[in-house]
C-alpha cells in the first residue's frame, strides 16, 4: 500500500477508543432519515449544535435524493418506455445526490471532525442503516 498520508491512513494509525452509531429515524416512513438526537459519548468532543446541523443537512440531502417530483415522474415514465435499459447507461438522480453526500461528509470530516479526533463514515458504506462516528483516543491527554 502506498503511503498516501491521507486522513484515513493517519486515522488508522491512531487507536479507536469507541464507536457511536446514529440509527435511522422511521417516524416519516421508509425514507432515509437519521435521528438527530445528540449521543452522550460525543459531549466532550463536539458542540451539540454543530453535530445536529451535520445530521440535519444529511437528512435534507437524502430527502432530496428520494423526492417525488415532476422530474422523477418524467424520468420514471421514460425509463419504463425503454424497458429500463437507460438505467444501464445513465447515472440516476439518486446516485448523483449520493456523490454530493460523499463530498459533503468528506468536507465535514476535514474541517470539523478530524481536528476533534472524530471520523464520520458515509452511511452508504453501512447499507444506509447507521451513521458511524469513530472516536479516536485523544492524544493530547497525557497521563
Amino acid at each position: 500500500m502506498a503511503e498516501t498520508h491521507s486522513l484515513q491512513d493517519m486515522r488508522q494509525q491512531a487507536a479507536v477508543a469507541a464507536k457511536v452509531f446514529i440509527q435511522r429515524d422511521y417516524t416519516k416512513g421508509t425514507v432515509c432519515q437519521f435521528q438527530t438526537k445528540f449521543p452522550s459519548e460525543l459531549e466532550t468532543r463536539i458542540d451539540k449544535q454543530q453535530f445536529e446541523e451535520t445530521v440535519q443537512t444529511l437528512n435534507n440531502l437524502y430527502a432530496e435524493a428520494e423526492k417525488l417530483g415532476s422530474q422523477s415522474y418524467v424520468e420514471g415514465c421514460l425509463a419504463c418506455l425503454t424497458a429500463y435499459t437507460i438505467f444501464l447507461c445513465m447515472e440516476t438522480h439518486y446516485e448523483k445526490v449520493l456523490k454530493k453526500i460523499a463530498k459533503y461528509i468528506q468536507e465535514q470530516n476535514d474541517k470539523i471532525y478530524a481536528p476533534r479526533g472524530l471520523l464520520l463514515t458515509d452511511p452508504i458504506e453501512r447499507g444506509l442503516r447507521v451513521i458511524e462516528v469513530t472516536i479516536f483516543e485523544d492524544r493530547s491527554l497525557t497521563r
Partner: protein
Amino acid sequence: LKNNCEYQQIDPQALPTPTPAPPPHHGNDRDKREEPKRPRRKWQVFPGKNRFYCDGRIMVARQSGVLPLTLGLIVITSGLFFIFDCPFLVKHLTSCIPVIGGGLFVFVVITLLQTSLTDPGILPRATPDEAADIEKQIDNTGNASYRPPPRTKEVLINQQVVKLKYCFSCKMFRPPRTSHCSLCDNCVERFDHHCPWVGNCVGKRNYRFFYTFIVSLSFLTAFIFGCVTTHLALSTKNTPGSNMELVICFFSVWSILGLSGFHTYLVASNLTTNEDIKGSWSGKSGEGVTNPYSHKNIFINCCSVLCAPMPPSLIDRRGFLPTDESVQTAGAGIGLAAKSEINVVGGSSQPASGLQESPSPVPVPPHSHQNSSSV
C-alpha cells in the same frame, strides 16, 4: 569416516527431519508477508445464498427456480407465433402484427432479465461493531447457549405503531417493510415475495421491473391468443404449432392477467404481497390499523412505487475489500472488528470461502408466491 564427517557437518540450527517442526506457523507467516496483493471484491465474500457472474456485475438467487422454464415458454410460444401465424396474418390482415408482437416480445424478455438479474434491495449485514452496539442497547438477560426470545422494537410511523423485528442472521433490527428471505438468506427491503418463475426475490429495487414484466406479458399472451384464434377462425388448416400456442396461451392468460390485476391493486394501495397475505394493515390484528406508507391517493401511490428515483444497490458487490495490512496496523481487537467483514462474515455458520457453493438443503416447492420469512 563418512559418518563422522556427516555428524560434524550437521548445522545445529537446521531443523532435524524426523522431529515434527511446526510448518503451518512458518508457512502462514511467510504466506502473509509474501501474499500477493490482489485485492478481492466484496461479492466473493458475500454471506447470502446468491451467485455472481461477470465479476459481480450480474447476480442471481441460489436456486434459479423455474426461470429457464419461464424463458423457454416465452421464447417457444413467441417463436411458434412468428413461424406459423404471422405469415398467414400478414397476408390476410396487416403487417403490423409481427411488429407489435416483436416489440412486445423484446419488452417482455428485457424486463424479465432485469427482474432476475438485479439486486432486489438486499441489506448488507451489520458489521460486528454495529451488532455489538445493538446488543448493548437490548437488555440481554439470557446466556449465550440458547437463543433469547425474539426481540422487537416499536416505532411510530405516521401515527401508526409498527413493530420492528430483530434479524438473527443479519444481526440488526429490520427496517420497516423489510423481510428476511430464507431461500436467499438475505434481508430484502420492501420485500414483496420470492418468485420462483423469475428466480429472484422481488423487492424495492426490482418491483417496477417485475410489474412491467407481468403487465407486458399479459399483453403479449393476450395478443398471441387473439392472433391465434383469428388465424384458426379464418383458416381451414390446423397447424400443430397454432394448436400448441392456443393451449399454452389459454392456460397462462388467465393466471397472468389475474396476477397483473392483483399487483395493480397492490401498487395503487402501496402494499406488498407480504403485507397483504399477512393482513398487516387490514385490521385483523386490531382496530384503526391503516397502512402508514400509503399516500392516500391512487395516483401518488402508483408514482411512488413505479416512478420513484431508482435506489442504489447497497451491497456494493464490485467494491474491493480492504487489504489485510490495514487490519494489522489499526490495533488488535478493535482494528480487526472494524475491518472484519472479511473475517467474520455475518456470524452465521457458512464458511467465507465456499459461500457460493454451499449446498442448499431446502427444496423449493413450486408455489407461485413464496412468502419466506424467518425469525
